[in-house]
């Protein structure tokens, strides 16, 4: 076991539930490196939703709460409000965050509460066996869209930004170094920070949407489907079409909720 794993994993909670080839392990690894570099172990409070992705924090040996499906964010708000010096990080899935938990997601962004929300976008409901998510591409076949998905997906980053998030980034499981940097930025950002990570889910999305279980190929395809701002600047429009923008997508400053609540405690009117 490597040094970071030894230092941060909750040994008694192992083995992990993730399928072979799943992207969640890469993301968790990047997160632990970010935490290690920031040296904030004791301030961390982790919150997991329900779904494969919601299990990620369960394996980390810090104070962790594994909540209900869709409800990680309000639990995180309660944790943050009771001790604003906590670094509260939410691990959530695409269904968890913007399907069943969508209302909490947009309102936490609106409040600009200082949370880091890491959303694993595998474009499917992984844990329950491959049903359509609000991120499933139009036309894609899943266990609940056998004739092709008749709906269009959300762009979670646009949603976050529109709702008021003050840090928004999107990367993929194929960008571990960029993820470490983004996690560090997000954790240090004093406001609602949202990071979407596009991951390969060979067992569910691979099988049902793509028609193959090959994880490296899946990840390579994800990498081919995305484009950074720098790459986009030099790309002809026909090549750019249909690609998903990755990188830091939005960053702004706005008063943060728990700071404002603290001002109320000091008797200042808002």
């Amino acid at each position, binding site marked *: 076991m490597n040094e970071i794993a030894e230092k941060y994993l909750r040994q008694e909670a192992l083995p992990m539930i993730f399928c072979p080839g799943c992207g969640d392990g890469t993301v968790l690894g990047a997160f632990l490196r970010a935490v290690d570099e920031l040296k904030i172990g004791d301030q961390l409070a982790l919150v997991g939703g329900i779904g494969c992705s919601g299990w990620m924090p*369960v394996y980390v040996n810090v104070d*962790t*709460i594994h909540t209900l499906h869709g*409800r990680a964010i309000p639990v995180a708000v309660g944790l*943050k409000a009771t*001790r604003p010096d906590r670094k509260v990080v939410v691990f959530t899935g695409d269904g968890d965050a913007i399907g069943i938990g969508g*209302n909490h997601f947009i309102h936490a962004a609106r409040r600009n509460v200082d949370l880091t929300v890491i959303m694993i976008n595998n474009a499917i409901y992984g844990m329950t066996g491959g049903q359509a998510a609000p991120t499933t591409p139009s036309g894609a076949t899943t266990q609940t869209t056998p004739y092709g998905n008749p709906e269009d997906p959300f762009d979670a980053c646009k949603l976050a930004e529109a709702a008021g998030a003050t840090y928004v980034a999107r990367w993929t499981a194929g960008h571990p170094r960029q993820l470490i940097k983004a996690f560090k930025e997000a954790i240090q950002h004093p406001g609602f920070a949202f990071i979407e990570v596009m991951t390969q889910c060979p067992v569910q999305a691979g099988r049902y949407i793509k028609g193959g279980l090959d994880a490296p190929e899946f990840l390579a395809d994800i990498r081919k489907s995305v484009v950074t701002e720098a790459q986009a600047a030099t790309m002809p429009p026909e090549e750019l079409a249909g690609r998903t923008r990755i990188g830091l997508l939005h960053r702004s400053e706005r008063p943060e909720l728990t700071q404002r609540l603290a001002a109320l*405690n000091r008797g200042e009117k808002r």
Partner: protein
Amino acid sequence: MSEDGRKVRIIQGNEASVEGAIAAGCRFFAGYPITPASEIAELMSRRLPPVGGTFLQMEDEIASINAVIGASWGGAKACTASSGPGISLMQEGVGYAAETETPCVVINVMRGGPATGQPTISSQQDIYQARYGGHGDYEIIALVPSSAQEAYDLTIKAFNLAEEFRVPVYLLSDEIVGHTRERVVMGGPIEVRERVAPPKEGYRPYAAGPDGLLPGMPAFNDGYRLLVEGQHHDERGIRAGDDVNKSAALVQRLNDKVRKNIDRITDVERVDLDDAEVAVVCFGSTARPALEAVQSAREKGVKAGALRLRVIWPFPEKVVAELAGRARTLIVPEMNIGKLVLEVRRSAGGRAEVISLPRLGGALHTPEEVEGAIMDAVKGGNAR
């Protein structure tokens, strides 16, 4: 204010609940407006910030109960309040709090249902929802105030019980209690159970004592490295849902820690029961006309009495059974289709006749109506 710090005010039951909560140490409230509970959120929003607490108006009641759960693990005594529709939305969260043994208080100012039902009118229809509203087997504690004074006293008690038993505790108030303005004595030497941090040495967060209870309540970021898990878990908090024995043991304990400690929780008022032939078993706002009826019947020479329940869950079955062994008839007035009467009947076990006096629509029973039932029972003779 008197010398011992008591003060007397004329306030609504809803306001009294807020004052009781704050006196009990509540420092976090999350809620969403709904009649007839909104005054609780409104007053919390004024009262909490100056005492260092946090008020949050959430996006819905699901968020509210979950924020309360987060706040409780965050180290604060925490509370939410709502009514019918909002309480329905909270049920998954209440079950989560029961599973994870998260102390919290849920105030339900009951109104008429189902659905949007009767927003401004009282009921006692949600008593079984409190006990069985979420999926799975778990127990909660439910206190039922009959007056503004009790809204104060029992809210304090609700917080104390939540801490002692590490369960969600309901205050089942109702529109009448919540909105009636009356005299409330507050402050003074009240009993408040402070949160105690468990020892860290070798700490296993879900290792219970012989009474089934977890010692103290830890908080996040205090060095425990907690894992709070909504799936069935072992004493360390590690998921054990696929272990039938550990799962059974956990669910058994979650229920037993309330059931087997019922004597520590039961809270009843006995009025003229020593020689009562007819006893009214009552709770909440319907106890008000019931007690008046008993008094009036007594004045007419009838051996009537009342058993008023301040805690309905766990149901005080021993107390009711004992009463059924002495009184000939038990009358159960309630503002619903006839619900708690089922528990009374079960506990009476055929040793007393049990008469249901249900009332739908939201109008409180009149004292005459209850007295009429008492008189009928006396006349009927009902030989045992």
